[in-house]
C-alpha cells in the first residue's frame, strides 16, 4: 500500500480535567456567588467549556488532523484521584498521537499525573488558563525533554498541529530505492543521506531496496521460467492490467499537452516505467521513490529499452508522492516535508544562483539566450536563482484545471524519455518555498523566492528549469550550501511551518533572509 502524506492523520485526543464541588461554601478554592456556589453548577460549566473547546478544535483542525472524542479527568472536592479513571483512559491515550489539554481549577495535579503516566506530546489550550505555565514548568522539571507545547493563540495552535502532523508524515516516510552499486549514495548525488540507519533512528524514515537490473527485467511481461536475474521466481512484471493503465495515462498526457513532441510509442515506454515503480512501491509499502539516474544510464539498458525516470518523478510528485532524481534520498525527505506542510505538489532540481558580473550573466547549464533575454527583460539582474531538472508536473496550484505544459523527449537522437515541460511563465510572481535537508540529516535549509520565468522549454535532455528571485542571493546561497544541491520547492509561503517542523525534528535551521 502506498500511504501518501494525505493518508497519514494526526490523532489528537482532547484531555480535560475538572473538579465538582459537592457543597455550598465560599473561600480560597471557591469563587462565585449565588447559584454558582450550589452543587451542580460546576458540572454544567465544565460541560459548556468542553463543548466550546471541542467545537473550536474541530473548526480549526488543519487538513490531516483528526480530533478524537474527548476524555474528562474528574474529581470532587473530596480531592479524590481514582485508579479506575486511569485504567479507563489508558487504551484511548495509547491510540492518540497528541493530547490537547485543558483543565479547570483544582485539578492541576490530576492533569499532571495523567501526562506523566501517559507521556505524549501535549498541546495546552491557548486561551485563558494559569495552568499552562504551571504545567510547562512542572513537566519540564520532571523531564526536560517532555514535549509540552503551550501556545497563546489559536493561530499558533493551528500551525503547531499542522507541524506535528507533518512530523508524523516524516516519521512514516518509506523510500523505495532502486540501487545498482552501493545503497547509500549514487555516483552523482553524494550529498544524499550518508547514513540510512542514523536517519531511520532520528527521523523515522526507512529505506527499502530493489535491484536495478531486476527492475529492468520486470518491465517485460513475465516469462514462464522467470526473469533472467531471478530464474524461477514469481516477480512483479508488467501485465495486461498494467498495460491498460499505461495506455490510459498516455492518453491523458497527450490530450492535456499544449504541444507534444513525442511519439506515442516512446511515451508509453516511460509511462510503463512509472506504472512499474508504483507497483513496486505498493508491494514494498513505500511512499517515496528514488533511483540513481547516471548509474542506471551507464548500464546502457535505459537506452536499450528506451526510457528515462523523469516522467516517473513528474507523475509521482504531481500526485504528492516525493520522488527524486539521482538517488537523492535527502531530496525525497525534503519533498515530503513540503508536501506535509502544504498539501501541494513539489518540484525539485539542481539549484544555484544566477550570477550577474561584469555586465553579463555568468555561464551555466540552464542559461541560454532564450533565458537571458527573459531575465534581462525584467530590468533587474540581481538576486536570481534557478532550480533545474526535467521533472515538472502539470499542476502546481493543485486546483482542478492544471497548467500549460509540453511533452518533449529527453534523448535528442532517439526521441525516448518522456519529460513534462510545465510552463512556469504562466505563474510569474508566484511565491515559492524552498527547502533541503543536509546529508547528515541534521540541518534544514529553508528559503523563499518569486517566480520570474521558465527555462529550457524548447530543449531536450535535463534542461527544464524555473527561474526565481530571492531576497538576497548570497544569503540564500550561504544557507543552501550547507544542505546541498537539489532543492525542492512548492508554491506558497510555508517557511514558518518548515521552521516549526525543523524545531520539532531537532534540525538546525538555515533560513535564507
Amino acid at each position, binding site marked *: 500500500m502506498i500511504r501518501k502524506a494525505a493518508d497519514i492523520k494526526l490523532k489528537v485526543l482532547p484531555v480535560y480535567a475538572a473538579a465538582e464541588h459537592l457543597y455550598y461554601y465560599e473561600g480560597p478554592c471557591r*469563587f*462565585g*456567588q*449565588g*447559584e*454558582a456556589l*450550589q452543587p*451542580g*453548577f460546576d*458540572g*454544567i*460549566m*465544565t*460541560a*459548556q*467549556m*468542553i*463543548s*466550546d473547546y471541542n467545537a473550536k478544535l474541530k473548526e480549526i483542525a488543519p487538513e490531516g488532523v483528526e480530533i478524537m472524542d474527548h476524555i474528562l479527568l474528574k474529581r470532587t472536592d473530596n480531592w479524590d484521584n481514582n485508579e479506575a479513571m486511569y485504567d479507563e483512559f489508558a487504551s484511548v491515550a495509547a491510540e492518540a498521537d497528541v493530547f490537547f489539554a485543558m483543565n*479547570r*481549577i483544582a485539578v492541576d495535579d490530576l492533569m499532571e499525573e495523567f501526562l506523566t503516566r501517559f507521556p505524549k506530546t501535549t498541546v495546552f489550550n491557548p*486561551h*485563558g*488558563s*494559569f495552568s499552562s505555565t504551571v504545567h510547562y514548568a512542572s513537566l519540564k522539571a520532571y523531564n526536560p525533554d517532555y514535549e509540552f507545547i503551550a501556545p497563546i493563540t489559536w493561530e499558533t495552535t493551528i500551525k503547531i498541529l499542522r507541524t506535528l502532523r507533518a512530523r508524523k508524515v516524516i516519521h512514516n516516510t518509506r523510500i523505495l530505492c532502486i540501487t545498482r552499486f552501493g545503497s547509500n549514495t549514487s555516483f552523482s548525488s553524494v550529498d544524499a543521506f550518508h547514513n540510512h540507519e542514523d536517519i531511520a533512528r532520528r527521523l523515522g524514515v526507512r529505506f527499502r531496496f530493489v535491484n536495478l537490473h531486476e527492475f529492468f527485467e520486470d518491465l517485460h511481461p513475465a516469462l514462464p521460467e522467470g526473469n533472467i536475474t531471478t530464474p524461477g521466481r514469481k516477480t512483479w512484471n508488467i501485465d495486461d492490467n498494467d498495460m491498460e493503465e499505461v495506455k490510459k495515462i498516455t492518453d491523458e498526457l497527450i490530450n492535456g499537452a499544449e504541444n507534444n513532441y513525442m511519439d506515442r510509442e516512446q511515451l508509453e515506454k516511460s509511462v510503463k516505467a512509472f506504472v512499474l515503480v508504483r507497483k513496486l512501491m505498493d508491494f514494498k509499502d513505500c511512499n517515496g521513490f528514488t533511483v540513481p539516474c547516471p548509474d542506471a544510464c551507464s548500464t546502457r539498458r535505459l537506452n536499450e529499452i528506451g526510457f528515462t525516470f523523469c516522467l516517473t518523478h513528474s507523475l509521482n510528485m504531481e500526485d504528492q508522492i516525493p520522488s527524486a532524481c539521482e538517488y537523492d534520498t535527502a531530496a525525497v525527505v525534503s519533498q515530503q516535508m513540503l508536501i506535509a506542510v502544504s498539501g501541494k505538489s513539489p518540484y525539485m532540481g539542481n539549484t544555484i544562483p544566477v550570477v550577474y558580473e561584469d555586465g553579463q550573466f555568468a555561464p551555466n547549464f540552464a542559461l541560454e539566450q532564450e533565458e537571458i533575454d527573459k531575465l534581462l527583460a525584467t530590468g533587474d539582474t540581481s538576486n536570481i536563482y534557478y532550480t533545474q531538472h526535467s521533472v515538472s508536473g502539470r499542476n502546481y496550484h493543485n486546483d482542478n484545471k492544471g497548467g500549460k505544459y509540453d511533452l518533449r523527449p529527453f534523448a535528442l537522437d532517439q526521441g525516448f524519455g518522456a519529460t513534462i515541460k510545465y510552463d512556469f511563465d504562466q505563474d510569474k510572481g508566484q511565491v515559492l518555498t524552498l527547502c533541503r535537508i543536509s546529508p547528515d540529516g541534521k540541518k534544514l535549509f529553508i528559503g523563499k523566492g518569486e517566480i520570474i520565468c521558465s527555462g529550457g522549454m524548447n530543449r531536450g535532455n535535463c534542461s527544464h528549469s524555473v527561474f526565481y528571485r530571492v531576497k538576497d542571493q548570497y544569503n540564500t546561497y550561504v544557507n543552501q550550501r550547507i544542505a546541498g544541491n537539489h532543492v525542492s520547492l512548492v508554491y506558497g509561503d510555508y517557511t514558518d511551518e518548515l521552521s516549526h517542523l525543523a524545531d520539532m525534528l531537532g534540525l538546525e535551521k538555515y533560513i535564507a533572509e
Partner: protein
Amino acid sequence: MLDRAEIKKRIQYHRTLSDAEGELILKEEKIEFSFLNEHLRKYILYRLHFDPAVETDEDFNSLLKRSLEEAMAFHPDLLAEERAARSCDGASTLVTKKALLLQSIQRKFDIRLDAFKAVEGKTLTDISKVIWEAMEQSPAWKDRLVYAGNT
C-alpha cells in the same frame, strides 16, 4: 441608561413571572411534554427578560446573547453574578450566564441534567427534552410524566 432601581424592579418582576411558570410545572400532578415545554419556555424567556407573548426566537444561544447584550447596555454591574462565576478558568460571561440559567433549572426542579446534552441544546425545545430526560431519571418525577404525543 435606565435608573438602577428601575432595572432592579424590572428584573424582580421578570424573576417573579419566571418563578410562577416554574411553580406551575411543580404543582402539575401529571405532566405531558407539551405542558413542560410551554411553561419551561416561559420560565426561560422571563429569566432572560423577554416577553414570551411576543418573542419568536427559539435559539437558546441567540436568546442568551441578546439578553446579555441588553443587560450590558442597561446596567453592566448587574451582571455581577455572571462575572463572579467566571472563576479563573477563562470562561466568558455568556458561558456563565448559560450555566447559571441551567443551574437554576436543576435546582428549581431538583433534577440532575445531562450537562453535555444541556449545553449543546440549540433550541428551547431541546432544553425541554433534556429536562424531560432528567425527570425520567428522577424518582420524584418519573411517575408524574405522561407519554402522549411526541416526546
